[in-house]
């Protein structure tokens, strides 16, 4: 297991292991696409790497937006919690950091998500958060073993069929994102870190 920066609510920088289209003469189409989909200059390298295959990036970006922001169904906070839980279980420090900050903003509470980052997915949680996190972890780590019993706790805390499908899409999308962030590059070391943390 490579040495990684610990899970954190702080902004982390991700750097690719391969040259991005910015470094190898992007076509005008690639440049325009990256300008359109990259959220900020610091987030740009990930999108500029995926822009080697533009159509796949375009479809995937629209899919992520639909999974995270569709109206009704699962709340925004539950979607972000599922994203963090999947990312925490899979070991993606970058994705967990981005979506933990969004969860903290939405809930005006950073204590819960900080515990999830620091202590892991088994940290004590309220019934609602526990149900979301458990589904996210099981669907992430052992999808073939998921049964109707695994969505029963979501129903007990009031989630509808549509909300459960929304969380399913989010968890799927974060397994996708986690795989890309973890295998195409790495999180930069913490500023001032000695390298043997």
């Amino acid at each position, binding site marked *: 297991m490579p040495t990684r920066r610990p899970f954190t609510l702080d902004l982390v920088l991700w750097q690719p292991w391969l040259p991005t289209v910015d470094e190898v003469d992007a076509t005008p189409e690639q440049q325009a696409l990256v300008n359109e989909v990259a959220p900020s200059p610091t987030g740009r390298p990930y999108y500029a790497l995926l822009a080697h295959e533009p159509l*796949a990036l375009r479809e995937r970006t629209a899919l992520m937006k639909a999974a995270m922001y569709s109206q009704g169904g699962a709340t925004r906070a539950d979607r972000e919690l599922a994203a963090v839980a999947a990312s925490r279980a899979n070991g993606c420090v970058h994705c967990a950091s981005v979506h933990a900050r969004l969860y903290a903003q939405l809930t005006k509470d950073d204590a819960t998500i900080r515990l999830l980052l620091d202590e892991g997915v088994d940290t004590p949680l309220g019934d609602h958060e526990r149900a979301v996190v458990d589904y996210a972890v099981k669907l992430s780590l052992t999808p073939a073993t998921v049964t109707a019993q695994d969505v029963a706790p979501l129903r007990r805390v009031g989630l509808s069929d*549509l909300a459960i499908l929304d969380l399913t899409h989010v968890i799927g999308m974060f397994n996708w994102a986690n795989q890309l962030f973890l295998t195409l590059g790495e999180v930069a070391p913490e500023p001032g870190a000695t390298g043997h943390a």
Partner: protein
Amino acid sequence: MSQTQEASVTPLFAADDVINQLATITADTKVGALRTHRSEVARYAEGSYYALFEPDDFGNVSRIDRDLIALRVAALTESHPLITWHQERLRHAGVAEAVLTAVKSNPHAAQLSLRQQALLSHVDRLTNAPATATAAHIAKLTAVGLTPRDIVVISQLTAFLSFQLRTLVGLRVLAEEE
């Protein structure tokens, strides 16, 4: 689910899209109605499938390579509808049964080229232990001639499947509850 019946939803995707075919969902079921309610997700999931499995330009990663990768992910995750789907595509392309068996059971089997073995080993890492990846694993792919674009393509394919197979699990569970 009155919620799904109230909303007027513009159909953005075909009722026989890939996920509905894989999950054997029809529009007149509860789960079919849920998918219609999330038609944007369905539309871009379908778009992602076609972008990765039926692109206009395959580059250096052939259709057969892509289906071999998908078959490996499906076998590792015991996703039976996806195993069937990609085996059928590979048979249609004339791939030998011995190769299909090898991909499902042992990515280092002699029936596979060194390039295919390198691809599938990387797919195993993405699927089972993505947090163990290092720059050295990318170097193994470039050593068998893969370009940055090729590596992005195989990573996107593998990671797309991780979304698709989990979506299928969720749909199966919701359908079982009916």
